[in-house]
């Protein structure tokens, strides 16, 4: 009993792994008509994890597995968001993957494996666990993209993602090995102490920092390490793009926080990575927003938009203050919420043999369905940062943190590029409301999807009207976790 209690912080991970193995086995005995069960079981698994994490004892300070994982409020909040977004992904993609012969146990099992990887990343406190979690996530994603075997585009996307991802992992590992050489430990807390005491060689630390920031840039898809994003977003089946674009961003945020802020948070190192992140953030904002204008494919456009949003996320992190970290966390949660809705609409309009991925497919959506057009309007406003939807407050809090940190010019640059970005978001609104529809097919969907999608769109408005709650949760959890 004592032994079981000592594992308490890892209950969610253990439960998830056991359920994955169970689903893997149960799925073998299901016929194609009974495949629904895999879907239901996957959702129940996520619900179980949600309850375990939500009702975990926050005062429990046992650290099992010799300090290889931590449980702090930031990890718990991010984990809850991850469960919710993966569940939403399952609900949205259900009819899409069914019509494309992907409704198989592997889709759900791989997605749950990726979720497990994200959980490990979010609560990793050693470079070893952080890296293994990242690999677990990435390997599952590569396989999910390639799941549509007969699609040339999907295979190409998976190949590109795999090769570039392996390269990025190599860089990250190289940086980590140098950190290990300089400090003699893999544990991030001990590493921070060693660096703080000035016992590490500064030259090695600087080199390690460059490699680690480059590796993180790849994983966050920040310019100049963004080449894979448009092709992967475009080539992957839309359901998988939805998955890649949502929950992993939360895990990537936690990864950056653990590695840069907890591990390399000594003040002389912060000054160094601040400048690297400034360059990456400005380039991401510029290239992401300007290139997105030229896209006629919505998936590619959202890929470039993701790059620019990651620039904003970096702005929050580089301000180097607890307020900045809280703003970045708020931003990433809001971004995931909005992305889920946008891809949800895309999946809703797609049907058997038709992908609603070109901008022209959205012409006159208002005449076909005023409700979905209104939802898309809210989501686009949130992406662009128009009040009163939540995207506005996310941008505002990040900009506020940047100004507080003394980078007024950076805030001005960010606002300028956001204005440019607003053009292509508002273009979709124009297409939906002022153009005549080209596509007259009725929009069919199942009830759970309609309900969740509506809730998702309304959440964007709701959190925008009362942004204080979510912001307070982020600020509180970051303040308690640092």
């Amino acid at each position, binding site marked *: 009993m004592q032994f079981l209690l000592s594992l308490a912080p890892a209950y969610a991970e253990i439960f998830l792994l056991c359920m994955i193995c169970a689903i893997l086995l149960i799925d073998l005995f299901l016929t194609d008509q009974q495949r629904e069960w895999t879907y239901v079981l996957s959702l129940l698994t996520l619900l179980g994890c949600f309850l375990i994490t939500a009702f975990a004892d926050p005062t429990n300070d046992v650290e099992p597995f010799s300090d290889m994982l931590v449980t702090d409020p930031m990890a718990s909040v991010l984990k809850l968001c991850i469960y919710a977004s993966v569940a939403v992904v399952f609900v949205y993609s259900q009819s899409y993957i069914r019509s494309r012969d992907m409704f198989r146990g592997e889709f759900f099992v791989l997605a749950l494996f990726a979720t497990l990887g994200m959980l490990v990343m979010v609560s990793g406190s050693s470079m070893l666990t952080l890296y293994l979690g990242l690999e677990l996530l990435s*390997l599952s994603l590569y*396989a999910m993209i390639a799941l549509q075997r007969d699609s040339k585009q999907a295979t190409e996307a998976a190949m590109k993602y795999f090769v570039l991802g392996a390269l990025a992992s190599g860089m990250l590992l190289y940086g980590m090995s140098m950190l290990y050489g300089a400090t003699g430990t893999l544990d991030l807390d001990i590493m921070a102490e060693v660096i703080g005491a000035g016992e590490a060689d500064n030259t090695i630390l600087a080199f390690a920092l460059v490699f680690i920031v480059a590796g993180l840039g790849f994983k966050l898809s920040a310019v100049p390490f963004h080449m894979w994003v448009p092709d992967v977003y475009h080539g992957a089946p839309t359901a998988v793009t939805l998955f890649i674009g949502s929950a992993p961003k939360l895990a990537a945020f936690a990864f950056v926080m653990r590695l840069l802020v907890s591990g390399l948070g000594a003040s002389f190192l912060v000054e160094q990575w601040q400048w690297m992140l400034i360059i990456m953030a400005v380039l991401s904002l510029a290239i992401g927003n300007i290139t997105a204008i030229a896209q006629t494919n919505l998936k590619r456009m959202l890929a470039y938009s993701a790059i620019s949003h990651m620039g904003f996320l970096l702005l929050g992190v580089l301000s180097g203050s607890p307020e900045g970290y809280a703003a970045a966390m708020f931003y990433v949660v809001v971004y995931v919420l909005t992305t889920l809705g946008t891809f949800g609409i895309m999946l809703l309009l797609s049907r058997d043999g038709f992908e609603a991925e070109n901008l022209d497919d959205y012409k006159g959506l208002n005449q076909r369905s005023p409700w979905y057009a209104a939802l898309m309007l809210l989501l686009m406003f949130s992406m662009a940062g128009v009040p009163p939807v939540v995207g506005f407050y996310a941008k505002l809090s990040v900009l506020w943190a940047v100004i507080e940190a003394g980078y007024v010019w950076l805030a001005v640059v960010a606002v300028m590029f956001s204005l440019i970005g607003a053009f292509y978001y508002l273009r979709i609104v124009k297409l939906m409301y002022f153009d005549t529809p080209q596509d007259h097919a009725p929009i069919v969907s199942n009830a759970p999807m309609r309900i969740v999608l509506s809730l998702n769109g309304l959440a964007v408005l709701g959190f925008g009207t009362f942004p204080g709650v979510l912001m307070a949760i982020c600020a509180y959890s970051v303040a308690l976790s640092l």
Partner: protein
Amino acid sequence: MSFHDFIFYAFSAVLVAAAIGVITSRNPVHAALLLVLAFFTSSGLWIQLQAEFLAITLVLVYVGAVMVLFLFVVMMLDINLVKLREGFWSYLPLGAVVGVLLALEMGAVLWTFYSRGVIEAPALPANYSNTRELGRLLYTDYVYPFEIAAVILLVAIVAAIALTLRTRKTSKYVDPAWQVKARSQDRVRIVKMQSENRQD
């Protein structure tokens, strides 16, 4: 020269000879077999260095699994040696430069290492087993990353099967269960037709 030294030099001589054989032999099967010999003798050297776990793993994994796979691949593939040897002389200068540089670098490392004097390994208690020590560490301090690594392997299996296992449309394979279930009505369809009158 003690017996220990004698064993060391004997194993080293076999190892170097086998390694040279790997790159000079014309027959790829011979090269693979010589590589097995090289692995085996170096595992003998490791046992001398009291690294018995590494030695056993080398034999089990490399000799037992990897090299056997290698041999199969070499036997299955129809490698045209003449084609492989094409352009040998044009690659030689670059290859020679790389080789000489490698040798120099290795020499430099060894020289700096030995100029500091050889550090004696600390004497270990008689009942010390590094297999047990490794196992203890893996299953206590590092059990969490160890389990995650196992999960990653599971993902690899699931992904490999999901991506490659599917029935080919051109396959002539017949499912026996379907064959047994087939009824005579499925095979032959009797169609009743009015007979046509002869038209002359």
